[in-house]
C-alpha cells in the first residue's frame, strides 16, 4: 500500500510536483548567479564567463546536480501533464457560466499552460546554448588579439593561462580535436586545452543583426511566463508538502512573490543589457 501511496495517489503526485518544483527553484538561483557574470564580469568578462562554463560542464558535483535538474524538469513536466489530463477528465461536462476569477488568481488556474510555455522555452534555450556547448562540432574557442611586434595577432587562450598562436592551427602545425584540445600535429600529443567561447555565442545570439531583438523580446516574455508560474508554484509547493502554519504563511507567501518577481526580472535584464548596451 505504502508504495503505491507514495507514487500514484493524487497526494503523492503533488509531493513530487512540489519537491521537483522547489529543486528547480534552487536551480534557477544557481543558473541566475552564473548568468549574472555576463553583466558583471570584472576585467575580462568573456574569460570569466568561459571559465565558469568550463567548470559547469566538467565538475563532477555539478554533473550530478545537472542530471538531477534534467530529471526534475522531465518529472515535473510529465507529472504536470498527467495531473492536467486527470483533472480535465474529472469534470466531463463544463459549466455554461463559470466565474473562477471570483475565487482564484489567474496564475493558479493556468499552471499547465504556463508550464508548457516554459517547457517550450527550455527546449529552445537548450538548443541555442546548452546543445552547442555540449555537441556543436563548430563550437568556437576563445581567442584574443595581441599586439606582437607591431603586428596584430590572434591567440587562443588556453586553460593553463597561456596563449597559442592561431597561426599554428591555420598552418596545420597544431590540430584541434574533441572540439577543444590542441594536439601537436606531428607527435599527435595533446598539448593544451582551449576555452569554448560560450560568451561569444551568447553575445552574438542576442546581438544578432536580424534576430537579436526578437530573441531578446522572446526571452523577456518567457521570463514573464516563468514569473507567473512561480507566483503560484512557490507557495503552492509548501502547501502540498503540508507546510501551512499561520506563523509562517505570510513569510512563505511574501518570499514566494518576491522570488517570482526578482528572479525572472534579473534573468530578463541580461539579454536586454547585451542587446542594447554591451559594446561588442
Amino acid at each position: 500500500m505504502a508504495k503505491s501511496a507514495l507514487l500514484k495517489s493524487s497526494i503523492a503526485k503533488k509531493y513530487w510536483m512540489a519537491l521537483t518544483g522547489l529543486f528547480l527553484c534552487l536551480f534557477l538561483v544557481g543558473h541566475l548567479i552564473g548568468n549574472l557574470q555576463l553583466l558583471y564580469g570584472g576585467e575580462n568578462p568573456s574569460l570569466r564567463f568561459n571559465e565558469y562554463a568550463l567548470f559547469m560542464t566538467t565538475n563532477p558535483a555539478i554533473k550530478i546536480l545537472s542530471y538531477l535538474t534534467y530529471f526534475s524538469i522531465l518529472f515535473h513536466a510529465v507529472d504536470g501533464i498527467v495531473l492536467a489530463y486527470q483533472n480535465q477528465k474529472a469534470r466531463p461536462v463544463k459549466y455554461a457560466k463559470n466565474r473562477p476569477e471570483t475565487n482564484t488568481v489567474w496564475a493558479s488556474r493556468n499552471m499547465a499552460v504556463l508550464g508548457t510555455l516554459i517547457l517550450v522555452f527550455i527546449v529552445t534555450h537548450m538548443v541555442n546554448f546548452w546543445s552547442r556547448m555540449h555537441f556543436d562540432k563548430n563550437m568556437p574557442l576563445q581567442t584574443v588579439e595581441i599586439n606582437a611586434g607591431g603586428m596584430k595577432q590572434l591567440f587562443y587562450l588556453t586553460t593553463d593561462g597561456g596563449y597559442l598562436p592561431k597561426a599554428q592551427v591555420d598552418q596545420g602545425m597544431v590540430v584541434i580535436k574533441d572540439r577543444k584540445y590542441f594536439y601537436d600535429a606531428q607527435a599527435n600529443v595533446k598539448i593544451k586545452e582551449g576555452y569554448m567561447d560560450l560568451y561569444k555565442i551568447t553575445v552574438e545570439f542576442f546581438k544578432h543583426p536580424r534576430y537579436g531583438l526578437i530573441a531578446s523580446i522572446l526571452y523577456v516574455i518567457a521570463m514573464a511566463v516563468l514569473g507567473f508560474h512561480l507566483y503560484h508554484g512557490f507557495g503552492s509547493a509548501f502547501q502540498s508538502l503540508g507546510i501551512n502554519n499561520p506563523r509562517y504563511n505570510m513569510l512563505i507567501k511574501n518570499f514566494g512573490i518576491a522570488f517570482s518577481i526578482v528572479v525572472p526580472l534579473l534573468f530578463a535584464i541580461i539579454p536586454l543589457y547585451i542587446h542594447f548596451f554591451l559594446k561588442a
Partner: protein
Amino acid sequence: MNLKLKIWRQKNAREAGKMVDYNISNVSPDMSFLEMLDVLNEELNNKGEDPVAFDHDCREGICGMCSLFINGEAHGPDRGVTTCQLHMRKFKDGDTIYIEPFRAKAFPVIKDLVVDRSSFDRIQQAGGFISVNTSGNTIDANAIPIKKHDADRSFDAATCIGCGACVASCKNASAMLFVSAKVSQFALLPQGKVEAHERVLNMVKKMDEEGFGNCTNTGACEVECPKGISLENIARMNREYLFASVKS
C-alpha cells in the same frame, strides 16, 4: 423583481441535458433562492410542465443538501452561505441568472439540478469514523483532556456539511477540502489518533477511485465553502498522508 433564468434541464442520468430559459416575475428580494425556485415550480406545475428538480432539506444552512452553481459560483455570489441562505436581494431586477448542477464526474446528474453525491458517503465509509465500543460502557468523550487549540481546530473542521461546493468550485473537481476536513476532525483528537494512518490512506484511496481531480492549490474551495473550511486542513491531510504512507 423580474428575472430571466437559464436552468439546466436533464430528464435523467442517461439523457443529455441543456440550458432552458424561464422568465419569472414578482420575485420578492426577501425570498431565499430556493423559495424563488419554489415559486417557479408552482408556475410550472400550474401550466402542467415538469417542475425543476433541485436538492434541499433543512433550509437553514446546516444539512448540506442544497447545491446549485449560480451565475458561475457554488451557492451563488454570497460568501459563507448555502443556497437556502442566499437571498434574492443579492440580485438586481432584470438580471439573468444561470442555474446549473454541481459539475463533477464523481457527482453525476440524477435529474435537472439534482446530483448524486454518494461518492462523499463512500469516502466517509472508507475511514471517516472512529471505532468505539458502544455496548453500554461507552467512555464519555470529555473524560480525556484535550488542548483548546486542538479542540477548536477539530471543531472547525467538523463544521463541514459535505455539500460539495468545494468540488463544484474547484477547476479540477477535487474533493481535497472535504476529505481533509473529515480527516482533520479526527486527526486532531486523541480518539481519532488510534486509526489515523489507516483513515487517511483509505479515504484518499477512495477519493481517487471515485474520480475526483487532483488538488492544485488554487484555493477556490476555501473561498466558496459555506462553512469557511480552511486550506490548513488540506496541508494537514498532506502531512498525515505522508507520515502514514512512510510508516505503514
